[in-house]
């Protein structure tokens, strides 16, 4: 694995925050869970009652944070509304991947692993590379976390190929999430902002959700023995920070923001060009959208 960049070190430091007193989401996260489990699940919630309390708390906190006039993100969102704006309507988060921008740098991969303490051999996010050869072959591989060159992979002769592009993958935070539907104990649940989360304190580790996710983003974490997956860095976004991968991307190929706000950067970018979701026919209604998705990507 490459050394985390400075940016990533900042991310890691942020996640190691000891928590402040009572009034911020950071506290909700840190007080309720040990740092390591917290890193794998975002907020950790111990049981139904606690979860309800937590969700109430998180909603209050998030709405409270929205009323703040100075938002940490405002510099990136030029409108200052992406994750904020104290509207009474519920916040709905969304994610955009611009495959036309992605250069396969792999910074997001390391950022995610460090931020969320993802065990080796498992991934919360990955980047696929599609190569269309002139002879009609399509090859797919995965961007190594250290980047293609550091991994010692040979260059492909550009004479041989028609086109090539990268497709980052992560949890789609489906509106009709099959993972959530099949979980026998409510350990997979939806946050008020529509983020699919896992309560590692009640997960029985049956792996039914792993089977049910059509996108292969779930796994049973060998350290917590509970289901695990991308949370869009819930512990960060509830503090008005970007997910670690979004922050790490050098070319803005990953955009996180509010779907319910027509003025958000996310919606403005989505409005300009055709976009798709993965495996639409399955009716999962992902909140992760792709720009420039080719037909062979599934």
């Amino acid at each position, binding site marked *: 694995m490459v050394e985390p960049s400075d940016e990533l070190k900042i991310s890691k430091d942020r996640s190691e925050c000891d928590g402040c007193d009572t009034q911020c989401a950071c506290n909700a996260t840190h007080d309720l869970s040990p740092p390591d489990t917290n890193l794998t699940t975002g907020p950790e919630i111990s049981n139904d009652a606690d979860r309800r309390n937590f969700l109430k708390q998180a909603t209050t906190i998030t709405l409270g944070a929205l009323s703040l006039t100075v938002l940490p993100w405002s510099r990136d969102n030029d409108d200052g509304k992406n994750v904020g704006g104290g509207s009474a309507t519920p916040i709905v988060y969304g994610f955009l991947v611009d495959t036309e921008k992605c250069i396969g740098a792999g910074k997001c991969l390391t950022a995610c692993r460090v931020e969320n303490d993802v065990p080796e051999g498992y991934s919360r996010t990955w980047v696929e590379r599609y190569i269309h050869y002139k002879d009609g072959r399509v090859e*797919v591989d995965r961007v190594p976390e250290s980047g293609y060159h550091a991994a010692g992979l040979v260059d492909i002769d550009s004479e041989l190929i028609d086109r090539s592009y990268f497709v980052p993958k992560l949890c789609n935070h489906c509106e009709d999430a099959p993972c959530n539907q099949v979980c026998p104990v409510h350990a997979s649940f939806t946050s008020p902002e529509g983020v699919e989360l896992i309560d590692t304190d009640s997960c*029985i580790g049956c792996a039914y959700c*792993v089977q049910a996710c059509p996108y*292969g983003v779930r796994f049973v974490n060998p350290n917590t023995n509970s289901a695990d997956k991308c949370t869009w860095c819930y512990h960060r976004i509830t503090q008005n920070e970007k997910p670690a991968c979004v922050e790490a991307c050098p070319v803005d190929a990953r955009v996180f923001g509010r779907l319910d706000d027509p003025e958000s950067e996310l919606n403005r970018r989505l409005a300009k060009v055709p976009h798709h979701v993965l495996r639409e026919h399955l009716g999962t209604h992902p909140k992760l959208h792709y720009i420039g998705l080719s037909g062979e990507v599934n």
Partner: protein
Amino acid sequence: MDAAEFIYPNDPHVAWSIMIVLYPYITGLVAGAFVVSSLYHVFDQQVLKPVARLALVTALCFCMFATLPLLLHLHHPERAFNIMITPNATSAMAGFGFIYSFYMLLLVIEVWLVFRPDIVERVNTNHGIRRWVYLVLSLGVPRITEQSLKIDRRLIRILAVVGIPAACVLHGYVGFLFGAVKANPWWSTALMPVIFLISAVLSGIAVLLALYVFICWRHQVAPEIECLRTLVRYLWIALITAFSLEALELIHMGYEAGSEWHILRTLLTEKLAVSYVLVQVIVGSLVPLVLLSVAVIAKPSRRMTVWIACIAAVLILVQVFAMRWNVVIGGQLFSKSFRGFVEYRISWFGREGILAAAVVLMLPFIALYGANRVLPISTADDH
């Protein structure tokens, strides 16, 4: 044009192991054995009397251990009861605890009622510790009257009637667990519950046949030939139905040849060539089909029938196991990218290893042996 192999990064960790193969195998044996016992108790198939009790106790012994593979599989077995404390109504799996408990309770009560006269008799004919054991088993009521027997018989009938749909739910439900996973084209079919159910009945009859012949052989008595012939006939019908349904499903998939067919075809012809084509189809289905057809149509001698029944039963038991394996493990051998395959590596030791699986499979037979020492389960004793 086929894309080169590519698998998603989390797919190499095959999430459902051999324990999840055993779970539907064992519940299938429970459901199948129970259906046979109900044929006697509900449909008055007197010819099945020699195996009626055996069927019921076999169902109970397997049911007792049906949760064991699940517990061995769960990564947090200590939280297993969450499934009943905080069940999620939209989860097919959440129903397991309730359906299983209901069925187990039903089986225990029915077995107790069926054996009550024997228990009471043994309270009165034994001494010392043995007497106490039977006294406890009689729940402290070592008396039987004509009227109580009548009530018992009616209750048994009611339980046997209720037990048939319960057995169907118990096992059809297991099929639904797989059939409702739209993420997996190898599982996602509405036929799955029916296929599971019919193959459950198939395996239940097969295990009873094998056990009955084995017990008779141990007691050096000849099996009741009419009982055996009836079981063979049922086995034959169940095999034809199960095989047709499975073939239908596959033909349908192949004929439709949807976008995922290319990966399923490779799965069947390469990755599952041995366990599917050879074991499940040829050795486990076609060979017993020929054998049973001979036994049913040509009506061979008693000796020959016993041999045919035995061989066919054992092959069918292997077939049903292979079918569970091909569904559960087979469905995880291709990546959800549909562009490549992963490998399932099973170890000898460990919670989900071969030895643990063998122990899980042996425990119901040990329980059956134990039960047979306490109560007159096999009517071979009566000979």
